[in-house]
C-alpha cells in the first residue's frame, strides 16, 4: 500500500514536467507575446526587459532556465530573490518551485498571486463538490429505490436538464431569476454566504446530475445481484439490504467519476468565476491568458495539474477502502 502510494507520487514528477514543458512550448509556438500588446514599447526598453527575463537567449537556454526555476536549482553568486522555497546546504543556497514574477502584475510573484486567489476557487470547488455529491447520491439512491415512480422520472428529468445546460447558460439564468427577478440573492461578487449560493449551484449542477445518474444505474445494477438476494433471503429489511449490502457496490462508479469531476470543477470555476465576477484562480487564469502573462499561465497550469494528479491518487486509494478485493501493487 505504502509503496503503491510512493510509486504513484513519484510518477507525478515526470507527468508534471511534461505538462509544464507542453504548456511552455504552446505559449511559445502561439503567435504574439506579452510585448506585442496595444502599447508599443520603445525598442530600447523592450530590449532591456527581454534581457532581464532572459528572453534574448536561444530557446533551449530559456527552457532550461525555466525548468531549473520551477524545479530546483542553486542560487547563482549574488543572485537575490525572495521567490520560491529556499534553503541552504552549507555555503550554497537552493531555490525550488519558483515560477518567477508575473509580467503583468509587476513585482508580484506567481506563487504569491496563486496563494492569494486560490481560496476563492477552493471554496467554490469544495462547496460545489459536496453539493453535487450529497444531492447527486441522494437523488440517485431514491430514484433507484423507487424505480419507475414519479419520483424517479422527476429526478432523472431534472438530471437530464442539468446535464444539457452548460454553466455559462445556467449561471446567467439563475442570476436573472434569483437575483434580478426575485431579489433573493446577490447577482455577483464575493462577500458572505449568499454570494456563494448561485455560483456553487451553477458549478455543481452538471456533476450533481451526472452523479445522480451514475448512482441510480449503479444501485439498480447492484440490487439485482446475487448477494442482494442472499441478504433478502436472510430476512433483513430493505433499508439494511440497501445501506449495508447495496450502497458500497452501487457507488463505485461514482467514486471513479470523482477524479474527472474535480478536473471538471476546476475548469468550471474558470467560467463561473467570470460569470459571477469572483476573483478566483480561474478568473486570474483568463486574465493571464489574455495578457500572455507566461509565468503566470505556467504557474497556474502546473499547480492545477499537480492538484488533479494528487486527487486522482486519493481516488485510487479510496477504492481500496470501498472494495476489499482491490490489491495495490
Amino acid at each position, binding site marked *: 500500500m505504502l509503496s503503491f502510494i510512493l510509486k504513484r507520487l513519484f510518477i507525478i514528477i515526470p507527468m508534471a514536467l511534461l505538462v509544464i514543458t507542453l504548456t511552455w512550448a504552446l505559449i511559445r509556438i502561439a503567435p504574439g507575446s506579452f510585448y506585442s500588446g496595444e502599447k508599443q514599447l520603445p525598442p530600447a526598453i523592450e530590449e532591456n526587459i527581454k534581457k532581464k527575463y532572459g528572453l534574448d537567449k536561444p530557446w533551449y537556454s530559456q527552457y532550461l532556465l525555466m525548468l531549473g526555476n520551477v524545479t530546483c536549482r542553486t542560487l547563482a553568486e549574488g543572485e537575490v530573490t525572495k521567490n520560491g522555497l529556499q534553503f541552504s546546504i552549507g555555503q550554497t543556497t537552493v531555490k525550488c518551485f519558483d515560477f518567477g514574477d508575473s509580467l503583468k502584475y509587476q513585482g508580484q510573484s506567481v506563487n504569491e498571486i496563486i496563494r492569494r486567489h486560490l481560496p476563492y476557487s477552493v471554496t467554490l470547488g469544495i462547496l460545489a463538490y459536496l453539493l453535487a455529491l450529497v444531492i447527486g447520491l441522494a437523488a440517485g439512491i431514491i430514484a433507484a429505490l423507487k424505480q419507475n415512480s414519479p419520483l424517479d422520472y422527476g429526478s432523472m428529468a431534472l438530471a437530464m436538464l442539468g446535464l444539457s445546460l452548460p454553466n455559462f447558460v445556467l449561471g446567467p439564468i439563475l442570476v436573472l431569476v434569483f437575483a434580478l427577478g426575485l431579489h433573493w440573492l446577490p447577482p455577483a461578487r464575493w462577500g458572505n454566504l449568499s454570494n456563494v449560493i448561485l455560483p456553487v449551484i451553477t458549478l455543481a449542477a452538471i456533476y450533481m446530475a451526472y452523479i445522480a445518474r451514475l448512482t441510480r444505474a449503479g444501485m439498480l445494477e447492484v440490487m439485482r445481484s446475487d448477494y442482494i438476494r442472499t441478504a433478502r433471503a436472510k*430476512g433483513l429489511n430493505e433499508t439494511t439490504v440497501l445501506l449495508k449490502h447495496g450502497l458500497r457496490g452501487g457507488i463505485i462508479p461514482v467514486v471513479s467519476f470523482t477524479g474527472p469531476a474535480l478536473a471538471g470543477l476546476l475548469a468550471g470555476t474558470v467560467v463561473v468565476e467570470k460569470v459571477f465576477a469572483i476573483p478566483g484562480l480561474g478568473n486570474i487564469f483568463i486574465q493571464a491568458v489574455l495578457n500572455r502573462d507566461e509565468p503566470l499561465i505556467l504557474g497556474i497550469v502546473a499547480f492545477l495539474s499537480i492538484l488533479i494528479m494528487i486527487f486522482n491518487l486519493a481516488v485510487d486509494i479510496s477504492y481500496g477502502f470501498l472494495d476489499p478485493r482491490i490489491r495495490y501493487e
Partner: protein
Amino acid sequence: MTNHNGTILTVNDLKTYFQTEDGIVKAVDGISFQLQKGETLGIVGESGSGKSVTNLSVMRLIPEPPGKIVNGDIIFDGIDVRELAIDEVRKIRGKRMAMIFQDPMTSLNPFLRISSQLMEVTRLHLGHNKKQAYDHAIKMLKTVGISDAEERIDSYPHEFSGGMRQRVMIAMALSCDPELLIADEPTTALDVTIQAQILELIKDLKARMGTSVILITHDLGVVAGMTEKIIVMYAGKVFEQAPTRELFATPANPYTKGLLKSVPDPAHEQGKELYQIPGLPPDVAHLPPGCPFAERCGYVQEICRTEYPPFIQINEDHHSLCHFAREVYAESVQERQAK
C-alpha cells in the same frame, strides 16, 4: 399452530408468472408437492424449467415486478406464506427457512467480512449481542468443516475458494437452525471432487439437525443418494413425481428417462460422449397446445401435439404427466427385469 401430520411445507397449484416484453412467461405453472418434516425432496429438471422460481416463490423472493405469484397456496408449518405481510415473511426468512444458492462466488457480499455476514443473521433473528453472534459464527464455520474458523472468520469472501464459500453459505443458512433448507443447485458451480464433499456435508448436517431439505439440481446423479422423493420439472410443470428409488428404477415419463440417460456413469466407458436429450426446452412464453415435450420426445404420437397430457397415477406416490405414462412405465419395468 402445531401440525398433526408432520408436514413442514405444502405447495398447492403454484403459478408464478413473469411479465416480459416477449409476453407472459409462465415460469411455474401449477406445481404441487408436499415435504414432510426431516425429509429431503429433490427437484430436478433442465435449466429454465422453473426450479428456482418455484423455491423463490416459497421464500417470497420473486422480484415483483416483473414477477408475480398468481395462484396457489404455500403453507409452511401451517402458515399461509402467500397471505403473510412482508414484515412477517422476513421473520421467517433466514430463521425458519433458509436458502443457499447456485453460485457461491457471487452469493456472498464481496464488500463485507464473512464475520459480518454471518453475525447479522443471528443478531437479527436470535437477538444475539456482538460477542454471542461472533462466537456463534465461529461455531457454525466449524460445523461446516472450516477448522481454522478463528483465523478466517474476519476474511473477505474473495479470500476463500469456491467450495469454502459454499461452506460459508451453508453455515450462514443454518445459523438459526431452520426447519427448512432450500439448496438451489448448491454444487453446480463447483469442481466434481468439491461437489461430493458439499453434498456429503448437507446430508450429514441434515441428519444431525433434523432439517427438512429441498435439493434442486439439473443433474439426477446428484439427488440419487440424497433424497427420499423427487419431482421432475419441465416447462414450469411437474412431469413426474415419485419416491427416489422408484423414479430411478422404473421411470414413467420419457423426459425422466432422457434425464436418467444423460447422467454421467463412471462405470461406463470414459471416452463415450454423454447422452443429451435432443432439442431445446420450449419458450414458456409461447407454449404449444399439446405436450410441451412432444417435439423432443422419442415416444411422440399424434395426440401429444394436439392434447395436453393427463397427470396419470402409476402407484400410490408415483405420478407422471404423459399420454403414455403406463406404457413407458411398463417398458421401464421390463427393462428392469431384463437386467
